[in-house]
């Protein structure tokens, strides 16, 4: 590999290739040459698709029936998150031998700052990263793609350019390299925003690069100048290992579309419990809640509500989300429901005494008892009635 700045760059973006699918292939070598899709349930979505499946057009987050229509001979595997978390930890441990400045972005993605590590590795970052990629393949059994660049934005773009098993470097040529690309290349520009930009005559990053500060402000509003800087490949974000999670959520796709409020609420209650558990595990609390629904026609609806005070009690999460849901149960059939905690608050702020809720301490104690039972006897040992179908549903 050649690049004039190869040995000077030190921000790396590491992305595992088709992570869940790769872990599954690692454990079942006979699937190596087969298209593999990891995803759940009759009506779930694709969590990950191997590169062979992607050749047929399968993408992650695609509904399973569409994926199977595109790639009928795919092997579908139910996700085994415990296994993926274990593999992720293994890779994270290897990252930590490279540099202490590792900021995980998700289970299979992280950004690393390797500045000042040359003496330690007796090699420049580029070489250390190449050794690291081989170590991951050897020890964790999955392949990764690495982007090396002067900043986080370019590192992420680089990591995506040469997948799978890639190693791509972007340096001083960034601006010229980005110019002919579609605006969609920038993280954060989705189809809706791209359409808006297109209506302004902006389709290529070159169009954004050409705007000066004032012009950007005038045409694109408050965030315009920042967008222009990113289009030029500039990014001043640091790699921050202490960076907290921004949201915690839980969602489920139904086996058949649901429109009745009581059916949706039953799922909502289970999700509230799941969300509460995840918040407790992360020692966080929800300061606000987002309800997410997807209609049978794949239109998304999200509704948000601040909580009067941060909480991680399933009851409180449920009651808040239920009020949001009530306004959306207008006969529309939904295929998916989810709730998310956002913004988050520290766990120490969760469920403080509330003057309007004299019984809250009692409910918190009851929840602690339920958690203790579940820890001892498993998740289904005890549950509230509202989590189960009513008599009316059975007949």
């Amino acid at each position, binding site marked *: 590999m050649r690049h004039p700045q190869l040995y000077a760059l030190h921000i790396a973006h590491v992305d595992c290739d088709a992570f869940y699918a790769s872990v599954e292939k690692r454990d079942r070598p006979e699937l190596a040459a087969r298209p593999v899709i990891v995803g759940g349930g009759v009506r779930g979505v694709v969590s990950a698709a191997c590169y062979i499946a992607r050749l047929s057009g399968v993408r992650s987050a695609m509904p399973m029936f569409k994926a199977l229509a595109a790639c009928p001979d795919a092997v579908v595997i139910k996700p085994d998150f415990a296994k993926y978390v274990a593999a992720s930890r293994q890779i994270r441990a290897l990252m930590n031998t490279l540099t202490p400045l590792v900021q995980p972005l998700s289970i299979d993605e992280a950004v690393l700052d390797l500045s000042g590590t040359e003496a330690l590795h007796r090699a420049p970052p580029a070489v250390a990263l190449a050794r690291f990629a081989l170590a991951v393949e050897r020890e964790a059994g999955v392949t990764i793609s690495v982007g090396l660049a002067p900043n986080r934005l370019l590192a992420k773009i680089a990591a995506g350019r040469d997948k799978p098993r890639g190693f791509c470097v972007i340096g001083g040529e960034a601006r010229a390299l980005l110019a002919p690309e579609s605006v969609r290349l920038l993280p954060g520009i989705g189809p809706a925003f791209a359409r808006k930009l297109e209506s302004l005559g902006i389709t290529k990053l070159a169009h954004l690069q050409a705007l000066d500060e004032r012009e950007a402000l005038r045409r694109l509003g408050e965030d315009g100048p920042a967008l222009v800087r990113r289009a030029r490949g500039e990014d001043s974000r640091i790699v921050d290992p202490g960076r907290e999670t921004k949201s915690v959520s839980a969602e489920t796709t139904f086996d058949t579309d649901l429109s009745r409020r009581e059916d949706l609420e039953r799922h909502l209650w289970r999700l509230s419990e799941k969300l509460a558990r995840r918040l407790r595990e992360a020692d966080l609390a929800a300061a606000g809640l987002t309800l997410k629904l997807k209609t049978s026609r794949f239109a998304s609806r999200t509704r948000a509500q601040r909580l009067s005070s941060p909480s991680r009690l399933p009851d409180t999460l449920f*009651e*808040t989300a239920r*009020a949001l849901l009530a306004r959306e149960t207008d006969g529309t059939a939904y295929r998916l429901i989810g709730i998310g905690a956002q913004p988050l608050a520290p766990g120490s*702020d969760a469920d403080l005494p*509330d*003057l309007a809720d*004299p019984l809250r301490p009692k409910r918190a104690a009851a929840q602690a008892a339920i958690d203790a039972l579940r820890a001892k006897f498993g998740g289904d040992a005890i549950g509230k009635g509202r989590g189960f179908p009513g008599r009316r549903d059975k007949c």
Partner: protein
Amino acid sequence: MKFKADRATLMKALAHVQSVVEKRNTIPILANVMIAARDGKLTLTATDMEIAIVEEVAATGVQDGSCTAPAGTLYEIVRKLPEGAEIQLDHAGGEAQLALRAGRFATALVVLPTDDFPSMTAGALPHRFSVSALALRGLIDRTRFAISTEETRYYLNGIYLHAAESDGEQVLRAVATDGHRLARVEEPLPAGAASMPGVIVPRKTVAELRKLLDEVSGDVDVALSDTRIQFKAGSITLTSKLIDGTFPEYDRVIPRDNDKVLRVGKADFAAAVARVSAISSERSRPVKLSVEKNLLEISAASPEQGTAREELDEGRMSYNSSPLEIGFQARYLNDITDQIAGEVEFRFSDGAAPTVVRDAADSSALYVLMPMRV
């Protein structure tokens, strides 16, 4: 229908009723005021289906009849007529337009049929009592700041009005809380109120009533049922639906045993809190009170802006218990001290427990404040 009224009288009445009219309503007739003349008496009525205001207006040359006309437009027209003008309104009935004349000005307004105008008068109001406008103002002013705007707990979106016993006295009690602070204010129980049910008066009703009370002296007649409340003051009658919900058992959250007592002059305290909290533009940042024997330090810190502190010592405050640190939202402290005239009394338990705040010279109001972590 036909009558004459002077501009000032009509404008005042229209101002009252039109403030109830929903500004962005989807039902056209709710934007209208009903003008009705019966037996020589003229009334104006407006409603948003939750609240209705009826006002009797002095008029001359009254011929019976009724119609409904756009409240906002009518008010604007009357407001712009010259002072002292005599206004004549004339409606021939049915779908005819409402003719308004004043001097050489004339207008004709499109009307909607009276039959479509929603009525809120139905139903008996078995509990009746009278309370002075002054007392009612006190109940509202000292509690309304604590009314919650949280939609999920809709039963907190109003003032809980009920009969209670306080230190052996029968009282009419108003309570409001948003979970962070609670205000409880009492007035001697008026005759006839002992058997009233506890009712939650919605925030908008409270606001409309409070506006009317500015113009009223003397007594207000209150009548209520489980679902409706009516206030009658002079020529104005305000009827409102009540919030259908259960107010929390607030008594459980009022601490009884807080024994660390801080007393501080209201003016000194409020000014110091205002100065110190200016360091942070973030409204939810806490102000810290550090109190020890005869010394109170009020401080605030903002990671971006810096720190500020102010001391109040002997002569301006008194405290005679073990040292304590506790944080509160500055705005919440202000809302409460705004209601206190002379000396503020804080009763603490510890830095994490609800604190009781009172006017040292007035036992009729009690406030509870949740601390924030500092």
